[in-house]
């Protein structure tokens, strides 16, 4: 455990030693702020119209602002993941520091978990940029807290999953750009699949749908906490970290 935290700490430091961490946070904060602005503007306009037409009863902040907003956030996060994971192993392979890690008395799994945890913490920092806008919503409207928390849990689990996949891809090459590109492509594919299968009810589409990391977010986004989805994400994370360790093993045998 000590070793995992040591690696994690080192990863976090190097993220924040370069501009990448700040860039990601700023980028996400801006995009999220923009989404927030559009969603609230529309909301205000609609509720104004509704009142003009004599309809009674408040409109639902959860349904009309938070849900689409966090759905949007999950898509944006999808495309930030490659920027976080691309350097994890590729950079160490390129500079040769991997030789230090692999000849130190720690296990491969400790290295992998440390790195994944580090990337996870950066991802949380990025997500945290949405806190300001969320706080405004809570101060102004009266949204339910529970579905918001569920949606955030979904964002975290989806992120953890993609970060683990990104980490795996990063072990395959020395070249950060390739690692980032392939991870980006995988994320893009998942995103597209979730679009296509949404209109298709054939058996194969259902299978793809089940395996698609993105579609499992939908329930979380609705504020529904289904143990099936949680189990899917958690087992995906374990599986990805496991193949990462296999990949590191074979790296030794090949290179």
């Amino acid at each position: 455990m000590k070793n995992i935290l040591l690696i994690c700490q080192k990863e976090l430091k190097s993220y924040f030693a370069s501009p990448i961490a700040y860039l990601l946070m700023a980028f996400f904060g801006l995009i999220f702020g923009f989404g927030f602005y559009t969603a609230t503007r529309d909301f205000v306009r609609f509720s104004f119209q509704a009142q003009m037409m004599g309809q009674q009863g408040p409109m639902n902040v959860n349904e009309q602002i938070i849900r689409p907003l966090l759905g949007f956030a999950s898509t944006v996060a999808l495309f930030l993941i490659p920027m976080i994971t691309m350097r994890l192993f590729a950079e160490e392979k390129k500079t040769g520091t991997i030789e230090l890690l692999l000849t130190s008395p720690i296990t491969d799994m400790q290295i992998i978990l440390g790195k994944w945890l580090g990337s996870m913490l950066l991802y949380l920092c990025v997500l945290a940029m949405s806190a300001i806008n969320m706080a405004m919503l809570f101060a102004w409207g009266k949204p339910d807290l529970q579905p918001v928390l569920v949606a955030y849990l979904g964002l975290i689990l989806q992120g953890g999953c993609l970060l683990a996949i990104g980490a795996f891809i990063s072990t395959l090459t020395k070249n950060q750009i390739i690692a980032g590109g392939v991870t980006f492509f995988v994320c893009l594919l998942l995103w597209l699949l979730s679009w296509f299968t949404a209109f298709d009810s054939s058996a194969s589409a259902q299978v793809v749908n089940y395996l698609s990391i993105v579609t499992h977010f939908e329930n979380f986004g609705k504020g529904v906490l289904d143990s099936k989805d949680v189990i899917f994400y958690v087992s995906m994370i374990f599986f990805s970290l496991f193949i990462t360790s296999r990949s590191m093993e074979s790296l030794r045998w090949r290179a």
Partner: protein
Amino acid sequence: MIKVEGLTKRYARTVAVDNITFEVEKGEIVGFLGPNGAGKTTTMRVLTCFLPPTAGTASVAGFDVLEKPLEVKKHIGYLPETPPLYPEMEVDEYLRFTGKLKGISGSDIDRRVDEVTGRCAIGDVRNKLIGKLSKGYRQRVGLAQAIIHNPDVLILDEPTSGLDPKQIIEIRELLKSLAGDHTIILSTHILSEVEHSCQRVIIINQGKLVAIDSVDNLTNRLRGSEAVAIEVEAANGRPNPTEVQQRLEQVAGVSRVVMRNSKDSRLSFEVESLQGRHIRADLARTVVQSGWNLSELKAVGLSLEDIFLQLTAGEEKARQENSVEAVTVSQEGAQQ
């Protein structure tokens, strides 16, 4: 302390290390000598559990590299060929990180960092970013990293590359001060490096073991032989290069003749002698008697490359001569 038996490491196409066997005793400093691509780094990577062997076994401090890698790694301090440094860290921060990575407890770490920064003379850059250090300083930080946990075994891949002469001497002193309770293997392609720091030498070439010997024995063996640069000029016209080469090869005690240059009417060669033979006088006589002019004749130092050829080819030739002697002796014996 280190035991390597029948070690072979094959990459996709090349056999980098081919069936080598050696042992290193506790407290020894052993030099690992070989030209580029000899397989030094590969052997060291196997010893440090970075790469698994294709065949054969290796063990450090009694632990097999395949079966007990964590134990092996605990006993080893390793300086890879390119020092494994994080440019975004400060020197102090980096040493603390590597120290903890190697299992030093939080209460000891400050003391250890102080000690190695002193020993490796990097006290003046402790708060600098590693990315901004010069190559020599990086090398020293890499070395500090290798000794931070005071390991039983030190494996150093070209520890003095990139250092200035003063630093090289200091590193040699450092290594000597570490010897005794540390076992050290260092690789290099510089023969004098080994002469200064090591008690024993392991020489490999193209993955194969060429010689294991004490430094004293080896230098004695090599001191006997000489390399001579010779320049021949024809008295009239241009001499036939192959003819000159053949004549030179026929001189007694010559092991090898290499043509270096042919310019106008001058031909230059490099000639190496067998061990213990002095060939300069004979060479001069041969050239003059053949009717050529001797325009230059001087002794040159043996390069590492020459020494390998010397060791391999010399042994080959010596064996042939011995067997010839053995035959004549037995014939004489039969006549008596």
